[in-house]
C-alpha cells in the first residue's frame, strides 16, 4: 500500500513539471502587455522597459522559463506584476477562502447527496425515487450564479429579522474578528515563518476552533452556509444520481441475493452490502468535483463578496499577471494530484481486490 502510494507520488512529478511548462507557455502566448495592464495605458515606453527589466520580461523566453523553474524549485513563486507583492502573500489571503468554501460545499454535497441516492435506490421506481431524481436533475441544471442570487435574496433579504436570516455576503460580520491562533497561543512568528500559520489562521472556522472562539466560529460558519449551498448543489446532484445508479446496479448482483437469503434486513442489505461496493464511482466523482471546486468559483465568489482563488485567477488572466496565474495554477494542480492520491487510497480501502495490483 505504501509503495503503491509512493509510486503514484513519483508519477506526479512529471505531471507537475508539465503543468509548469504549459501554464508558462500559455500565459506568454496570450496577446497583451503585462506592463500596460499593470500600470495603465498611459505608461511610457521607458517606464515599461524598466518594468519589464525588473521582472525579467526582456530576457529570451527559454531564459525566463529556466529562471522560473529554478525559482519554483527553491520555493520562490515570484512577485505579482500588478500588486508588486509576493505571490505567497496573495495565496495566504485567497486560498483559505476557497479551501473553506470547498470543504463546506463538499461536506454538504456528500452528506446530503449520498443518503439521497441511497433512499432513491431503496425506494426504486416509487414516487420518492422520482421526486428525488427530479430535484437532482434540477440541481444539476441550475445556473450557479442564479442560485447564489436567489439564496442571498431569500435568506439575506426576505428572511431578514427572522431566525432564518443568513449573511448574504462577506466572511465575517463587520466588527467581528477572530484572534489568530498563533497570537492566542503566544507563538512568536513573523516574516516568512508566518506564511503557514497565517494561512491556517485565515481559514476562519478552523482558526476559531483552534482558539475556541465559539461566537466567531458560528459567525464564520453562517457566512459559509449560503455560498457552500450554492456551489455544492451541482456536485450534490451528481453524487446523488451516481450513488443511485451505482447502487441499483450492485443491488442486482449475486452477493446481494446471498445477503437477503442470510436474513439481513433490507436496510442492512442496501447499506452494508450494497453501498460500499457502489461507492467506487461515487468516490471518483467526489474527487473530481472537489478538484474543480478548489480551482475557484468566480461567479459564486462574486455574488457572495468572497475574495477567493476564482476571482484572483480571473483578474490575473485578464490583467496578464503572469506570476499569479502560474502560481495559482500550480497550486491547483498540486491539489488535484493530492486529491487523486487520496481517491486512489480510498479505492484500495474500499475494494480489497485493488490492493493486490
Amino acid at each position, binding site marked *: 500500500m505504501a509503495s503503491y502510494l509512493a509510486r503514484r507520488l513519483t508519477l506526479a512529478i512529471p505531471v507537475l513539471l508539465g503543468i509548469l511548462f504549459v501554464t508558462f507557455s500559455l500565459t506568454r502566448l496570450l496577446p497583451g502587455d503585462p506592463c500596460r495592464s499593470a500600470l495603465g495605458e498611459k505608461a511610457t515606453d521607458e517606464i515599461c522597459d524598466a518594468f519589464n527589466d525588473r521582472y525579467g520580461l526582456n530576457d529570451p523566453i527559454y531564459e525566463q522559463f529556466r529562471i522560473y523553474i529554478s525559482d519554483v524549485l527553491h520555493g520562490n513563486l515570484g512577485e505579482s506584476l500588478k500588486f508588486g507583492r509576493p505571490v505567497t502573500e496573495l495565496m495566504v489571503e485567497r486560498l483559505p477562502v476557497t479551501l473553506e468554501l470547498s470543504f463546506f460545499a463538499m461536506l454538504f454535497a456528500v452528506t446530503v447527496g449520498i443518503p439521497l441516492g441511497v433512499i432513491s435506490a431503496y425506494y426504486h421506481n416509487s414516487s420518492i425515487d422520482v421526486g428525488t431524481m427530479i430535484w437532482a436533475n434540477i440541481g444539476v441544471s441550475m445556473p450557479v450564479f442564479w442560485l447564489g442570487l436567489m439564496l442571498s435574496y431569500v435568506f439575506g433579504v426576505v428572511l431578514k429579522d427572522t431566525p432564518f436570516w443568513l449573511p448574504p455576503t462577506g466572511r465575517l460580520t463587520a466588527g467581528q474578528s477572530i484572534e489568530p491562533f498563533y497570537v492566542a497561543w503566544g507563538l512568536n512568528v513573523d516574516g516568512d515563518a508566518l506564511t503557514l500559520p497565517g494561512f491556517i489562521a485565515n481559514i476562519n472556522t478552523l482558526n476559531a476552533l483552534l482558539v475556541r472562539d465559539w461566537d466567531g466560529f458560528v459567525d464564520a460558519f453562517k457566512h459559509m452556509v449560503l455560498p457552500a449551498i450554492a456551489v455544492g448543489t451541482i456536485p450534490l446532484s451528481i453524487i446523488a444520481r451516481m450513488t443511485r445508479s451505482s447502487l441499483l446496479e450492485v443491488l442486482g448482483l449475486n*452477493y446481494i441475493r*446471498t445477503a437477503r437469503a442470510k436474513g439481513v434486513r433490507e436496510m442492512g442489505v442496501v447499506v452494508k452490502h450494497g453501498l460500499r461496493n457502489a461507492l467506487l464511482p461515487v468516490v471518483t466523482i467526489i474527487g473530481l468535483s472537489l478538484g474543480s471546486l478548489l480551482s475557484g468559483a468566480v461567479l459564486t465568489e462574486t455574488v457572495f463578496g468572497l475574495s477567493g482563488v476564482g476571482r484572483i485567477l480571473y483578474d490575473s488572466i485578464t490583467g496578464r499577471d503572469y506570476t499569479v496565474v502560474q502560481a495559482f495554477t500550480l497550486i491547483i494542480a498540486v491539489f488535484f494530484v493530492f486529491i487523486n492520491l487520496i481517491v486512489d487510497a480510498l479505492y484500495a480501502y474500499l475494494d480489497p481486490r485493488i490492493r493486490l495490483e
Partner: protein
Amino acid sequence: MTKHQHDFQPSTNSQPLLEIHDLRTYFFTRDGTVKAVDGVSLTVERGQIHGLVGESGCGKSMTAMSILRLVDKPGRIVSGEVLFKGEDLLKKTRHEMTAIRGKQISVIFQEPKSSLNPVLRVGTQLIEVLRIHEGKQRTIKRKDAVEQLRSVGIPDPDRRVENYPHEMSGGMAQRVMIAMGMACAPDLLIADEPTTALDVTIQAQVLDLIRKLRDEHEMGVILITHDMGIVAEMADIVTVMYAGTAVEEAPTVELFETPLHPYTQGLIASIPVMGQVKERLEVIPGNVPNLIDMPPGCRFAPRCKARIEHGLTRCEVEEPHMIEAKPNHFVRCWLYEGES
C-alpha cells in the same frame, strides 16, 4: 448409484417439514405475464434430500426463491401455500421472514465466488449470520467463524477466515457458502445448483459434504440441479419440472427404473452411459415453450413423441392433472390418466 441412498422412511404421523401447494409465481413484464412457476406442489421431509430437476429456465430456482419470498420485481407470488413446519410462509410479515431466512431455511447458490461479497472478509460474512440470528453481538468472535470453516473441511481455517472471496478458489468459496448456510443449523437447506460452477472432483467433495451435514443435522434438503447424475447420486425423492410446472415425482430409484412421463424418459435417455458407444447422444427434439405464450393443454405436447405414438388428441387441448399413477409415483400425463 444406490449405494449412498439414504434409508428414508416417510413419517406418516408428524407433519412434513415443508409442503408446497399449487405455488404460482408470475413475472408481470411489458411483453406479457411470464409464468415462471405455475402450479408446483411438493413435500420435503426432515432428513430427506428432495431433488428438483429440469432444463434451465423451467422454474426450479424460482420455486426456491419463492419459498424464501425473495422474488425480485416484477415477479410476484400470485397464489399457493408454502407450509413450513405447518405455518404458511406466504402469510408471514416481512420481519418474520427475515428472521427465518438464514436461520431456519438457508440457501447455497450456484456461483459461489460471485455470491460472496467481494469487499468483506469471509470471516466477517460468516459472523454476520450468527450475529443476526443468535443475537449474541459481543460473544460471537472470530473463533466461531474459524470453527464454522473447520466444520466444512476448509484447511487452515485460521488463515482462511481473514481471506477475501477473490483470494479463494471456487470450491473453497462454495464451502464458505455452505458454512454460512449451516451456521445456524437450519431445518431446511436449499442448494441451488451448488456444484454447477465447480470442477468434477470438487463437485464430489461438496456433494459429500452436503450429505454428511444432512445426516448430522437431520435437515431437509432441496437439491436443485439439471444434472441427472447428481440427482441419482444424492436425492431420495425427485420432482421433475418442465416449463414452470412439476410433471413427475417419485422416489429416486423408482424414477430412474420406470420413468413415466415422456419428458423424464427423454431426460434419462439423454444421459450418456459409460462404455456404451452411440453415434449420437439422445436428445429431446424442440425447445422449451415460451413461458408467456404457453401452449394450451400439456406443455410438453409439442415435443412429445409418445403423444404421436399413442395417437393422443387431447394433449394439445386440455392440461393433464398430477395423478398418482403408482404408489408414491406421481405424473402429469394423459397417458396415465384414467388408468389409476
